[in-house]
């Protein structure tokens, strides 16, 4: 049920129970396992527009974090008998095991079109009385007023190297660079990509003050993706402001919005966001277009960048929103989409290499 009272009936999927969250849709045709473990979906009920979900099952390798992140899942049809050589269990089994409430068997295209025309809205998956459920839904804190970053960030610093997650105290020998990562809701594949380029990541809680970040003596700083309204993250923005100019900075998704705020710009909420694996982005510097993986509900306000020293480097070809900025004076740049893919196209992996080169420049 949506907050406007529209009811869609379906069958239960995953854990029994009730869940509320902001209902968003993702148009990717593959990648449900990565989506379900992407912390940027915290507080959201994800609707997958492709109708047949779970076909290739769930495997042990494609998790993007240690737990299921969205508040709930909506699909047209969940596959009970998947087929793929790596599959170890079904979508339903994963959801039931980890306590996520989902629903299937409803007209997902109808809900998608409603969100497209009315904008994203809060929703509830329930098996109870609709009128009472609506009251509970309206009593729930809305997405934009909640702080999700502090609940998805790491509690204690850790490191990520060639062998994956490791203790912070282990040696950084054998790596080319050390990267400090402000974890606002990281996906593992970002760390995997850096490790493949001989970079050891030191992952820090989102609210780590600037001095503590610099105390790790990093060669560069990464502002990670994450959920929620960036303008609510003043302590993080404050830290970024102090870090600018000290070390090369690269931001991904929420990191792009945090960089914008730290430079003095503003962000705004998109009507229904960009979530999928097919968004075209134009690089204004060389004129090329890249197909990107996206998952964001907020965007940088281009007018707010005037006088901040930042320039717009990339635009979304569909709706003209800002997809990348650069503040050359403070060696900081960021992109709004996901070069780490997982899910989505691998076409923008070059940004990891570019940032490593920037770290080489000091």
């Amino acid at each position, binding site marked *: 049920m949506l907050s406007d009272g529209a009811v869609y009936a379906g069958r239960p999927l995953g854990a029994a129970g009730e869940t509320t969250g902001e209902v968003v849709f993702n148009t990717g045709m593959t990648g449900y396992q990565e989506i379900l473990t992407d912390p940027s979906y915290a507080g959201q009920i994800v609707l997958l527009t492709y109708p047949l979900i779970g076909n290739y099952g769930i495997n042990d390798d494609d998790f993007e974090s240690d737990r299921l992140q969205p508040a709930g899942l909506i699909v047209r049809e969940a596959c009970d008998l998947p087929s793929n050589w790596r599959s170890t269990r079904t979508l339903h089994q994963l959801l039931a095991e980890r306590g996520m409430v989902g629903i299937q068997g409803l007209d997902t*295209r109808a809900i998608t079109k409603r969100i497209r025309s009315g904008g994203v809205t809060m929703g509830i998956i329930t098996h109870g009385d609709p009128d009472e459920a609506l009251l509970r839904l309206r009593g729930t804190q809305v997405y934009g007023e909640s702080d999700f970053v502090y609940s998805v960030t790491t509690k204690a610093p850790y490191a990520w190297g060639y062998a994956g997650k490791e203790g912070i105290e282990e040696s950084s020998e054998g790596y080319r660079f050390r990267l400090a990562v402000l974890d606002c809701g990281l996906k593992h594949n970002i760390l995997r990509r850096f490790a493949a380029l001989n970079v050891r990541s030191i992952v820090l809680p989102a609210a780590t003050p600037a001095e503590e970040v610099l105390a790790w003596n990093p060669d560069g700083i990464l502002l990670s993706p994450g959920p929620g309204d960036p303008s609510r993250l003043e302590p993080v923005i404050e830290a970024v402001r102090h870090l600018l100019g000290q070390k090369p900075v690269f931001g991904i998704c929420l990191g792009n919005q945090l960089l914008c705020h730290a430079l003095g710009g503003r962000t705004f909420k998109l009507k229904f966001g960009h979530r999928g694996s*097919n968004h*075209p982005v134009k690089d204004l510097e060389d004129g090329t277009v890249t197909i990107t993986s996206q998952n964001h509900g907020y965007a940088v306000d281009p007018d707010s960048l005037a006088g901040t020293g930042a320039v717009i480097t990339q635009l979304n070809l569909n709706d003209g929103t800002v997809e990348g900025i650069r503040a050359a004076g403070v060696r900081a740049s960021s992109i709004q989409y996901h070069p780490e*893919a997982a*899910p989505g196209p691998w076409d923008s992996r070059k940004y990891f290499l570019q940032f490593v080169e920037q770290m080489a420049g000091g």
Partner: protein
Amino acid sequence: METILVIGSGPIVIGQAAEFDYAGTQACKALREEGYRVALINSNPATIMTDRETADVVYIEPLNVDFCERVIARERPDGLLPTLGGQTGLNLATQLANGGVLDKYGVRLLGTPLSAIQQAEDREQFRRLMREIKEPVPESWIIESPDQLEAILDTVPYPCIIRPAYTLGGTGGGIAEDRETLWETGLKGLQLSMRSQIMIERSLLGWKEVEYEVMRDSKGNCITICNMENFDPMGVHTGDSIVVAPSQTLSDIEYHMLRTASLKIIRALGIEGGCNVQLAVNPNGFDYYVIEVNPRVSRSSALASKATGYPIARVSAKIAVGRTLDEIENQVTGTTKACFEPALDYCVVKIPRWPFDKFPNADRSLFTQMKATGEVMAIDRSFEAALMKAVRGLEIRQKDLKHPKYESMDDDGLRRAIAKPTDERLWAVAEGLRRGWGVEEVNRLSKVDKWFLQKISHLVGIERRLVEAGKLRGEGEDLSSLIAEAFLIGYPSASIRRLLGVESDDSPFGQVAKAEIERQKIMPVFKMVDTCAGEFESQTPYFYGTFETEDDALELRKAT
């Protein structure tokens, strides 16, 4: 540039049928939209593209160098678009270029350079390029003596394929599972070959066959239109295979590994326009091989176009005259650009249409040479419903998955029918599942992916429940919800009536059942094919029927 000459695909032959008329017509319209004068030559007057409205001037003449040169001399086109007329158009353009006709009249070839086309089509050049860009092609060995054969017995991967060079219809070839068979078959092949030469190639029988339709513009922007997964594993020509779009059994990593490979190939070749890449994928690992590339608008691109709503031929024509993907409008939405990748919120099933009903004595077995003369494509929200729709679209005797020939076949015969690809294998597979052989056993026999078999098993299960409900005369499960479920996964009303056994049953039960079928039959809705899974509002009225709640067409009718 003012006038552009477009070469059509000529007579309809296997693998080159009405889809090239569709592509050519789209291209002519796109070029005129860009302000060019279009001259068209095609030897086949029974086409839409030769209608007066399609091109500015139409020549219905034989597709050979002499006639084409005369048309060029008369029309003096500035450019020639060869990549939309199938292999016929491409071959003729190559002859015109090599014969100096194009140079003589100052005609520029538009779109993909000829050198790139040759590189894609010449087996050796293509393999060399793939090795350069580190894309895997199936390993092969040329053997010209028994000594050479002996030397490789321990290095080749088994099973492998033996192909003697220059023998009629591949006589003397075969598959070797072990070194003894390879030694014997290889020696025989060497004797039979006129040049005493055989080729030994890694066998990919049983691997998944996956295709990607990709596009590139002159600025190097590359996109995927659609990927497709074959129901029949490697060994059956993709034109003879049941195909589903998008792929169903590839995880995100596998999907994008193959997508990345396809884009790397189209970049390396320097294609300007559409291109089709065929890959063989190990069902039990991350390895894959590049099988073939079609450097032009092909039969598969016509299917991808209809499956996604993305006008591949139209965009290819615009790319050929120098427009780039980020400039060309996405005609379907009217608000976004052609530079994006379609997102489907439905499942597409293609079944080839073979002419065996007209040639009952022809060999029905399917392998690497295409035999289908047409195809049907169906769209629905589930694989089962799309498959059932496609079966009905074939306009053959079978309207569902029951086939008397296989129902009456003994177990041994049926096992052989499941193992051997023919036009009727789908029904043999369904019968095997109906006999309770299980998905594992049918997969072992047919190598068809278990995902497809599970779905067919689901359909057969509904069949069984309908038959059971008919026997129990309404005493068993709820008839209304069973009928709803049957409709939802694609059973037509006639099949439901037949399975319930109420076709000519006027008893109270029969009447109730028939009334319920009629009542539910009128409840399908129409959903739009909009290239973007509902993300943007769309203008093109292209719909499919399905049993859901909201009707996209109804909204459109109200709006107008």
